[in-house]
């Protein structure tokens, strides 16, 4: 392990290269420019392919091609760019191709701005493009966690043949923190891809497709997808709890807001308020069960987000009326201070 001071965007890029990334395709957009630039400098030196595409649409389709050819492939962008990629992501999901997509969210809708926001939660966790599909969505709240989750994203994506998304924002992307970078992966440990298009030599042809004109056939493809999703929902929910054991009020927050909420918990505890934090790390699969268990004991489950209340819907699905579920959100790239959140907490606690 090597400990270095790095920007989030660069740590994600380096962690991806160390995870055996072979092909990276991109289109420039703020606030993930450092990721693109790091890849342009580093990936070709280390045996990989860097290509700046003519559009977000082309970039995700290049990922589709490279992933179909059986290599670890990745793209990164920010909210408006991710919207453009949705067509390709839908095809990748149905074609069962592993790959990693990084979304450094920014303020929206529309052109919005480049400040930190969490308005893409629905898009990331509920499908995003057309059809019934999911992405594995991982939400880091620090730079070191971002590096760690990139490795996990590649591994889970390979394991289930489901595309994985790192969902963060410009705060995580551009802040510098000390990072323990993962050791370079042993190429022999990357799962084999007997389904990839590598030339039909010594085997029948391989076809990568998301297409079946027959309703019964397409239903079978969909049921296979859904079976994988149920397995992921059983095996892969990840979350962090801080001071939840005796908490009367649980703050639920992820990513940048999760980081701020951690400070809020410490401030509240100094004032003898029994406040805890529940921080989902996998946004899909959402950790419904552990949050439900907390809701049995806690008096209030307060969701705080940089959105108008998107994860809030999953929180309410988890709590199912076991406790009141108030919401506090900020919009437009405004990031609330811990003090502001503490005021909100005090409305319900103590």
């Amino acid at each position: 392990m090597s400990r270095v001071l790095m920007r989030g965007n660069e740590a994600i890029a380096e962690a991806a290269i160390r995870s055996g990334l072979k092909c990276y395709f991109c289109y420039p957009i703020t606030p993930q420019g450092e990721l693109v630039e790091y890849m342009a400098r580093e990936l070709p030196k280390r045996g990989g392919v860097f290509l700046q595409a003519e559009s977000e649409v082309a970039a995700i389709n290049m990922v589709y091609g490279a992933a179909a050819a059986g290599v670890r492939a990745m793209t990164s962008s920010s909210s408006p760019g991710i919207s453009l990629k949705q067509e390709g992501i839908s095809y990748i999901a149905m074609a069962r191709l592993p790959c990693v997509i990084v979304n450094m969210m920014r303020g929206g809708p529309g052109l919005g701005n480049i400040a930190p926001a969490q308005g893409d939660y629905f898009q990331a966790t509920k499908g995003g493009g057309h059809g019934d599909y999911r992405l594995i969505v991982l939400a880091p709240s620090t730079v070191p966690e971002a590096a760690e989750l990139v490795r996990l994203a590649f591994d889970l994506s390979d394991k289930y043949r489901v595309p994985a998304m790192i969902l963060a924002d410009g705060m995580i992307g551009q802040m510098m923190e000390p990072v323990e970078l993962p050791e370079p992966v042993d190429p022999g440990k990357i799962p084999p891809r007997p389904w990839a298009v590598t030339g039909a030599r010594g085997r029948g042809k391989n076809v990568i497709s998301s297409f079946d004109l027959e309703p019964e056939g397409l239903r079978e493809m969909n049921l296979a997808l859904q079976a994988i999703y149920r397995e992921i929902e059983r095996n892969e929910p990840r979350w962090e709890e801080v001071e939840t054991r005796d908490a009367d009020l649980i703050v639920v927050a992820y990513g940048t807001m999760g980081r701020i909420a951690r400070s809020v918990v410490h401030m509240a505890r100094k004032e003898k308020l029994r406040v805890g934090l529940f921080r989902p790390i996998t946004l899909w699969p959402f950790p419904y069960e552990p949050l439900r268990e907390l809701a049995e004991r806690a008096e209030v489950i307060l969701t705080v987000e940089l959105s108008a209340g998107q994860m809030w819907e999953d929180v309410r699905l988890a709590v199912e009326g076991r406790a009141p579920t108030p919401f506090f959100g900020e919009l437009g790239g405004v990031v609330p201070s811990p003090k502001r959140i503490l005021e909100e907490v005090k409305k319900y606690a103590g």
Partner: protein
Amino acid sequence: MPVETAVPAGYIRVFGKPKALSDVKYTYCPGCHHGIVTRLVAEAIDELGILERTVGIAPVGCAVFLDRFMNCDFVQAAHGRACAVATGIKRARPELVVFTYQGDGDLAAIGTAETIHAANRGENITVIFVNNGIYGMTGGEMAPTTLPGQRTTTTPWGRDPRLHGYPLKISEMLAQLDGPTYITRQAVFDYPHIVRARQAILKAFRNQLEGKGFSLVEILSTCPTNWRMSPQEAGRWVAEHVTKHYPLGDLKDVR
């Protein structure tokens, strides 16, 4: 893998189904030129002995089932994205032979950007561009390549350039770029033209094997069903009218 039918003693094989073609029946309409073009691609793959390292990109459109008609590996692309998908495959595994097979709606409308930029980068891929001036599979709507005056289901009174624009000469556009190696326009409405188209397709694959870069073969084709013509009339229409708007021959050939 396909099994070659044994030739009885005393006979010699002069004609047969290419190994690159499967036993699945074409879904192309009777008289459509797709059948000829698909076969020419298969013959080129056979002749170059590259079946076991070729990956095709099936488009959205009448050739959407191409992966079933042929025996090489295939990837099904989203509408218009074939050149971007081909780029991803070829960059990941340069040892593969990668070709796209696209219609005019796919390549010259929704996929214009992907086509132009793949050509401009000189991606070392082979593009087979089947231009029949119409959207065949969706029911005969106007394509960017539809001729002025031509009736389609979305230009019921004929294509009016003042309202719908002019036929897009995408091969001429691509030939202006520095990136591509070989841009040619061919047709398959009679035997001499089929022989020339066959040579062009072979060359487009050979260029890739030699690392020469982007090659595109446009083939003027018929759509008897949506043109409301018999196959014979449709072939004559290409010879007499379509070739006037889209002259045949090499537009760029970097040796």
